[in-house]
């Protein structure tokens, strides 16, 4: 019977800072937790009192990786509050925006944060001597996605032109043709990425949980749809609070969440499990090549699901950009009249479903805000995975191996810890 004293401060190659703590005595687990020590960000607090046209520009600063996603959720919440209906062209551009962000984020995670684990390297830099080609490929794909994003919304981080009601500037034909051609030209790089992942051995582990994502009859839902729970089916987006039920735990500045069980999972694995049939043909063929048959209950396969989604976003972007070129772009001016009301924006971002809810007064000043971030929704699920995993391997593997598996597990979720740190309800007593 083994003693364990694992204290990883901090987990490397994730966004933000989190610690893994495991204590076991004579094989009995005494403590397992994922400590989140980042300071809360207070975004919801300091958006209150600001006018409607500033909100998406402030809230997209919650994250440098999912800034398009935050901006989209924010804009959708404001549009719902004001009764604004965006044009078909605006919706197409927003979907392209999300595709670009998914490629950016998934490539970053797969090549620079996650792959080093599987190739026994400490970082992407340590891969250079033996896998320089793969690192260069990762850089090339990341740059393509950055340029794609900048083409649609002005710049690749903290976008400028995406606003409530539409776009202040639309991309021109030459820029669209250029990105389209580069996406088509990068398909062999995507194939090479799949080949790389075929050589990677994903740890064996399963824990079935509740999977929550958007779902739509029309497409693989990222921009719009019902909230879908693998346990209870479809729910309207306004019911998000009953499916998140945020709560505080002593060891985390980020809130945890649960829906119908003790925890649930959001992100690429939830989306692919819930909506596999709606994936593009290329994405389905990637899934087949990687022997991914949903539902998959192994959280380490979040990486595989991200690669499948990357293929989907590539193929759908090529399709949508070609359609835009065929239709031609019109210069539409956003037309928004603020009014009192409440709206909810539910959008898929790379790490899972994201909710923004806003209430405005009649002048369009924000009076209340609530943002529920994917990583926060996953934290309880990660801890329950850790609590199942450790007893399964404690007698088979040494402390170093257990530590690595735990780090890889947390990393598989691609947590954005800084984003998830959330306004805590603090009550001061005299």
């Amino acid at each position, binding site marked *: 019977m083994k003693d364990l004293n694992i204290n990883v401060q*901090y987990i*490397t*190659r*994730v*966004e*933000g*800072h989190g610690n893994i703590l495991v204590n076991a005595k004579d094989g009995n687990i005494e403590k397992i937790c994922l400590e989140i020590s980042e300071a809360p960000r207070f975004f919801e607090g300091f958006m209150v009192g600001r006018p409607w046209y500033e909100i998406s520009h402030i809230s997209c600063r919650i994250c*440098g*990786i999912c800034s398009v996603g935050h901006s989209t959720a924010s804009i959708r919440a404001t549009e719902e509050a004001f009764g604004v209906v965006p044009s078909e062209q605006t919706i197409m551009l927003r979907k392209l925006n999300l595709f670009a962000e998914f490629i950016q984020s998934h490539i*970053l995670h797969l090549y*620079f*944060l996650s792959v080093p684990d599987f190739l026994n390297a*400490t*970082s*992407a*830099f340590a891969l*250079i001597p033996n896998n*320089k080609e793969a*690192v*260069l490929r990762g*850089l090339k794909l*990341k*740059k393509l996605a*950055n340029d794609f994003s900048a083409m649609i919304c002005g710049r*690749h*981080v903290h976008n400028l032109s995406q606003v409530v009601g539409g776009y202040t500037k639309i991309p021109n034909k030459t820029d669209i043709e250029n990105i389209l051609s580069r996406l088509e030209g990068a398909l062999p790089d995507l194939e090479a990425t799949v080949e790389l992942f075929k050589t990677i051995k994903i740890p064996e582990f399963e824990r079935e949980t509740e999977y929550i994502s958007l779902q739509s009859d029309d497409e693989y839902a990222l921009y719009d749809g019902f909230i879908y729970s693998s346990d209870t089916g479809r729910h309207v987006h306004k019911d998000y609070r009953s499916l998140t039920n945020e709560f505080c735990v002593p060891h985390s500045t980020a809130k945890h969440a649960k829906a119908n069980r003790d925890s649930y999972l959001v992100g690429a694995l939830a989306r692919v499990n819930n909506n596999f049939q709606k994936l593009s043909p290329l994405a389905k063929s990637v899934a087949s090549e990687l022997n991914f048959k949903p539902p998959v209950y192994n959280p380490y396969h979040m990486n595989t699901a991200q690669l499948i989604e990357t293929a989907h976003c590539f193929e759908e972007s090529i399709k949508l950009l070609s359609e835009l070129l065929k239709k031609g772009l019109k210069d539409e001016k956003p037309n928004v009249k603020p009014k009192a009301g409440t709206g909810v924006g539910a959008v898929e971002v790379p790490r899972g479903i994201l909710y923004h809810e806003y209430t405005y007064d009649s002048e369009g000043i924000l009076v209340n805000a609530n943002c529920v971030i994917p990583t926060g929704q996953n934290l309880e699920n990660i801890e329950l995975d850790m609590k199942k995993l450790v007893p399964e391997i404690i007698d088979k593997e040494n402390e170093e191996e257990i530590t690595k598996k735990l780090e890889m597990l947390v990393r598989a979720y691609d947590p954005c*810890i*800084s984003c998830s740190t959330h306004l805590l309800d603090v009550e001061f007593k005299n």
Partner: protein
Amino acid sequence: MIDISVIGIGNILLGDDGFGVHFINYLRERKSMPEDIALIDGDIDTFSIANYLSESKIAILVDACNFRDGPPGSIEKICVEPHKFKAFENNLSVHSRSLKDAVLLASIERDDLNLIIYAVQVDCVEPKLQLSAELRKVFPILEEKVLTDIKNFKKEEEKYEQKSTCH
């Protein structure tokens, strides 16, 4: 490929940390640089900075720095040899990547990076949008240094081209 770029980096929400970006805006307003020089607001994204570096034949990078013993506004010129750069053993998080990582990433793509860094001693790094007065005074001095570098680069390039033609 860009011939010569001037890249200012930093976080404009943190006072003097944003010096590089403010300097680029100053140069844009002044229109003092030759037209073929790319003036780039490099922000703080490591991957983007790596792209700007690898896409420039010659890059002049401007960043805020804390030498700890220098007076605010003092300028250090650093000629970089990328192969001597070593990334941190552990990359704590995407948020913790550094300029060193950007240079290293760029040098994976190109082993002939030509890079000068101007590091300017900060006075005050705290959440605010303005530069401190001492750092604003540095703009014209640094502008002159960058212009001199550009002239020297161009002279060298001309010499090289002449030699190539003779051969």
